[in-house]
């Protein structure tokens, strides 16, 4: 059975603006892909540990030596909008009255 997913909810989580056509196409395609992908549940028994990295490494340290970083100008050079040395975005919160 194809998997039914709540496209609007997932699109909001992903911050992805979709047209109605895209939503309908994705609903059908993702349903089919997930039906196939759900087969992972058939083989993985409870006693099998998960693997996040094939070649695990942990606690990778280096000497804590200061190095030059990006200048403010270089860091802002690709910004779609900037003002007074900062990235500029539409408002993110209601302003108090």
């Amino acid at each position: 059975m194809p998997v039914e997913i709540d496209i609007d909810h997932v699109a909001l989580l992903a911050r992805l603006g979709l047209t109605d056509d895209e939503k309908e196409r994705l609903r059908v395609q993702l349903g089919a892909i997930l039906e196939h992908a759900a087969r992972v549940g058939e083989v993985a028994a409870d006693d099998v540990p998960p693997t996040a990295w094939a070649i695990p490494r942990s606690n990778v340290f280096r000497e804590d030596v200061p190095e030059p970083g990006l200048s403010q100008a270089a860091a802002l050079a690709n910004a779609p909008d900037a003002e007074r040395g900062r990235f500029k975005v539409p408002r993110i919160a209601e302003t108090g009255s």
Partner: protein
Amino acid sequence: MTDVCDLTGSELAEKLHAGELSAAELTESALRRAEAVDGDVKAILTPTPEVARERAQAVDDHATTGATQSPVAGIPIALKDVLATNGIRTTCGSKILENYIPPYDCTAWTRLSGAGAVLVGKTNCDEFAMGSSNENSAFGPVHNPWNLETVPGGSSGGSAAAVAAGEAVWALGTDTGGSVRQPASLCGVVGLKPTYGLISRYGLIAFASSLDTVGTCTRSVRDAAVLLGTLAGKDQRDATSLDAEVPDYLRALEDGVGGLRIGVIEGTFGEGVQPGVQDAVRTSIDRLATLGAHVDDVSLPTADHTLSAYYLIAPSEASSNLARYDGVRYGFRAEGPHSDSIAMMSATRGQGFGPEVKRRIMLGTYALSAGYYDAYYGQAQKVRTLIIRDYERAFADFDVLVSPTSPTTAFRIGERADDPLAMYLSDVFTIPANLAGVPAISVPCGLDSGGLPVGLQFTAPALGEPVLFRAARALERDLGLELRPPLLAGV
């Protein structure tokens, strides 16, 4: 007519060292070839002729001092456009990064550049390396030099096509589920995916961090070994970079396959593998046996579930990695006015990403969302454990494994565009090596009845690149194929 850009890097290094050829002449040869064919092939998104000429001149100047040169010095190379290059536009094949100019170099290029390699351009690819045909590039598809109506494979299609057509002698690609090996197979070149962590991922713009590797496209196995020797090694800027010692990859290159135990992966002659692919692969395996290898069958029992696991793990990691494209710090921002930041980000991402990237972001976001994580991502990670165990068992009995690289040769542009599941099947033989982190290489092993190249894949245990190169070289030497796309007859 052949030109110097058609020779292998190893042949060219000899000529450069002997003073029979200058880096400037070699660079002009590659730039001329790109000029002649790239209008048809469309492998290169951003040509860099000025940078190339300047760097070639520097190599020639250095040569006159009599100093020893690296084997990569003066060799024209193209980089997949997901590899960050300081001051040179890096698009990831996406509208969202159409005008992005990185302020830093990826480590892979830092190493090659430091050794004198000559950058001729940034190559076209599927958007954010997601695809198997190069049709997902926001800047149009690449055309396979062997037949311009077919795909070059993907996602590193531009890199493989550029090397096949002589626009570059070498190219770097990236391989997350087969993205170097599959296009190499479809374009008739050698494609290497090394052990995970052997080449630094710093500056490889992330798709799926636990699977991504930098890989190489070359016209010989020796060239792949030479390139890896320069690229491999610990990098403090990548926490997953391996600390392993980098051996001399050329030392055992010509040792042959006498006595090697070679396992033929079950499914090699299965349903879905084209007859032309089966024939070329069967002939190659017979040759390996004749050359003294012990050949037997081997099964990877979890193989049937690798596609499922991959299409949960890779999109999950992608949905997280691609969250950074939000129209704030770099890249495209949708035209306003926007009511708030969420509206701006949603519009930016909706307009900036193409269909395949949206599909995978949605898939990954769903698989990681509350209530579904255990059933999808959690289970997929367990399957990954089983795949690693399959390889451990196989490598207890065999030194290397063989299979086709791709079940088919190059398919027609548009043929699979509307069927994502059919497209995903292109990677059925290549994905397991990414999930297990082991190295694999695709070597051309013949042409099908339509004159399109077939690739044979060798897989070795982690850090088994020396035996991988040795087996691949033995086959390459024995077959002695002269591979030249028909397109080049007219240039």
